[in-house]
């Protein structure tokens, strides 16, 4: 268990910038997830932390100690790879104990450690098999076993679940979360899957094009996205971004959203409406589940009612995803099953307490609507 700091990390490959002044920190016992699309630099950052990749500029500290010039083997880290990278010619037992063997751990202790890990990961019956004789999920477990057996300071995971089918992925996700809560270890985990990030992380780092977009707990990232990129990346279906413009009148400050019949004037917090802001192009960010049927308002909700014509209904079983047009933008709402049919005119309401306002030009968050 240890803390990790990667400070002002820069990495250039020739003329290409893979990491642009990135700083992350994982406290002891934290589950830090680096989230972003492919090519955003998240895997490069993990490799730099591991010592498998050199950095152009910056500092990596493990437990406050500078490890920039240490080899991977001297950093006391363990890593799980996307392809598992099991040694094909070795049995499961040899795979798990290889690192211990190299570090000169005597055989009885090695065997004991292998048994302990095998029990934890339910691998006892497979210790004498080779990787080619294992299923994807079993290989994944062996890869985890290889990391766990050494009891390192920090665990690094590089998209460990990407090669599994959907069902197994959910199972292994739970396993990893369980292991983390039992062992209380520090984990840095790379993924492009926002659901993995949300479910596993104690802290998420959203990355895009070599830069960090936002760092926060899953709930912060979900409720208070720093910009439209994060808003669109997190959540499935993602946050709706309704285009509009800021307007001021005696009644207060409004977001004017063009609509098929007459424009909607959505009231927003008055401190968003400085005179200079009048006419400013904005996006109103609304999560699908904060839109509901107009007659179903709860107590903590501040509803804004409007009428729309439903274009498409996509039933998911638990909810119906209703898709309609607002301000020239397709908007998705998560409604109760049977709330409406395609083509129907329906009264909906949006909970303004959960809505967020973004600047249309920069994409940055201006503030909460209320």
């Amino acid at each position, binding site marked *: 268990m240890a803390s990790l700091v990667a400070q002002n990390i820069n990495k250039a490959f020739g003329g290409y910038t893979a990491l642009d002044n990135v700083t992350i920190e994982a406290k002891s016992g934290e589950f830090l997830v680096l989230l972003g699309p492919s090519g955003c630099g998240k895997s490069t950052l993990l490799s730099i932390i*591991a010592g498998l990749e050199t950095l152009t500029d910056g500092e990596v500290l493990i437990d406050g100690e500078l490890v920039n010039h240490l080899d*991977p*083997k001297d950093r006391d880290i363990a*890593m799980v*790879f996307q392809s598992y*990278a099991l*040694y094909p010619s070795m049995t499961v037992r040899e795979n798990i104990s*290889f*690192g211990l063997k190299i570090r000169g751990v005597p055989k009885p202790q090695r065997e004991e450690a292998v048994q302990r890990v095998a029990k934890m990961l339910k691998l006892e019956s497979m210790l004498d098999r080779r990787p080619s004789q294992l299923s994807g999920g079993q290989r994944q477990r062996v890869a985890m076993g290889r990391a766990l057996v050494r009891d390192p300071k920090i665990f690094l995971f590089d998209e460990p679940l990407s090669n599994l089918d959907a069902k197994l992925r959910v199972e292994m996700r739970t396993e990893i979360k369980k292991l983390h809560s039992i062992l209380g270890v520090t984990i840095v985990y790379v993924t492009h899957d926002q659901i993995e990030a949300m479910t596993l992380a104690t802290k998420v780092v959203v990355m895009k094009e070599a830069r960090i977009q936002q760092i926060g707990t899953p709930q912060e990232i979900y409720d208070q996205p720093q910009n439209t990129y994060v808003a669109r990346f997190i959540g499935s279906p993602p946050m709706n971004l309704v285009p509009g413009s800021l307007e001021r009148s005696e009644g207060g400050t409004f977001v004017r959203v063009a609509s098929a019949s007459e424009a909607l004037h959505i009231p927003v917090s008055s401190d968003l409406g400085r005179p200079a802001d009048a006419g400013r192009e904005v996006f109103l960010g609304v999560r699908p589940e904060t839109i509901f049927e107009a007659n179903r308002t709860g107590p903590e909700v501040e509803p804004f009612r409007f009428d729309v014509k439903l274009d498409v209904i996509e039933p998911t079983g638990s909810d119906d995803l209703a898709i309609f047009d607002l301000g020239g933008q397709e908007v998705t709402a998560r409604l109760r099953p049977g709330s409406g049919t395609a083509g129907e005119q329906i009264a909906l309401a949006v909970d303004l307490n959960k809505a967020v306002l973004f600047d249309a030009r920069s994409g940055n968050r201006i503030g909460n609507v209320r």
Partner: protein
Amino acid sequence: MSNSVSASSGVGLNFGRIAGRVLVLGTLALFVLYFLAPLFVMITTSLKSMPEIRAGNIISLPRDPSFEAWRVAWQEACVGVECPGIRGFYKNTFLMVIPAVTVSTLLGAINGFALTKYRFTGHRLVFGLFMFGCFIPHQAIILPMARALGMMDLSGSLWGLALVHTVYGIPFTTMFFRNYYISIPQELVKAARVDGAGFFRIFWSIMLPISAPIIIVSVIWQFTNIWNDFLFGASFTYGANAPIMVALNNIVNTSTGERPYNVHMAAAIMAALPTLVIYVLAGRYFVRGLVAGSVKG
């Protein structure tokens, strides 16, 4: 192949299809005969006596098969003025081929490993130079090599010849292993580095155990090339140190009176036997290994 079989048996046979099949198989059979004819003549001639050979018909079966010519070739065939048989040269060649094949394969494997898994600045250039080495003809290196061997005091020795073959073979073995290792995931090496293994540890414990197909390719390639080599053998050795191919040439060219064709044939078959055995034992791995490297690389 299984496709054509099922297609012809599933649908009714017709005349055109049968005629086509006969034409193809007939042509193939002719080529088989054509390619096997020399081997047939060699074997039958080696089993005949000289009077029978003089009688003329080279494709007839031996009337009274005897291994006398084989014994003579092994023990008494004359090379120049001495008549030691080919056995000494046989031993020479093994003594020279085994270290040359082993060392060149091992170095090729290390090179291929370094070129694919431990990328260093200029690795492309280095591999380019290795490739260039594959295209240097034997003749071009004879003089410089002779001088180098002279300076190392290895002129005319079997060790010198083994060294020449090792050096000449390294570009080929490097290329084989490089093309094989390039399809092995980089993450395997990363995992081993995190586990604490260094360059040679990773090479021995992880890469070599999964290299069997390409080791077989490299060994067959190097063994047949070095065993069958004549030019280097003739250039860098003499007398009793000569390898088998040079000795065979000398036996055939040593003419006092009647040419003992049966002995020549027996000696030639014995000279070719090791490479034949290697192909029969490991030939299918050879094709498989070559394809694996080229398709994935």
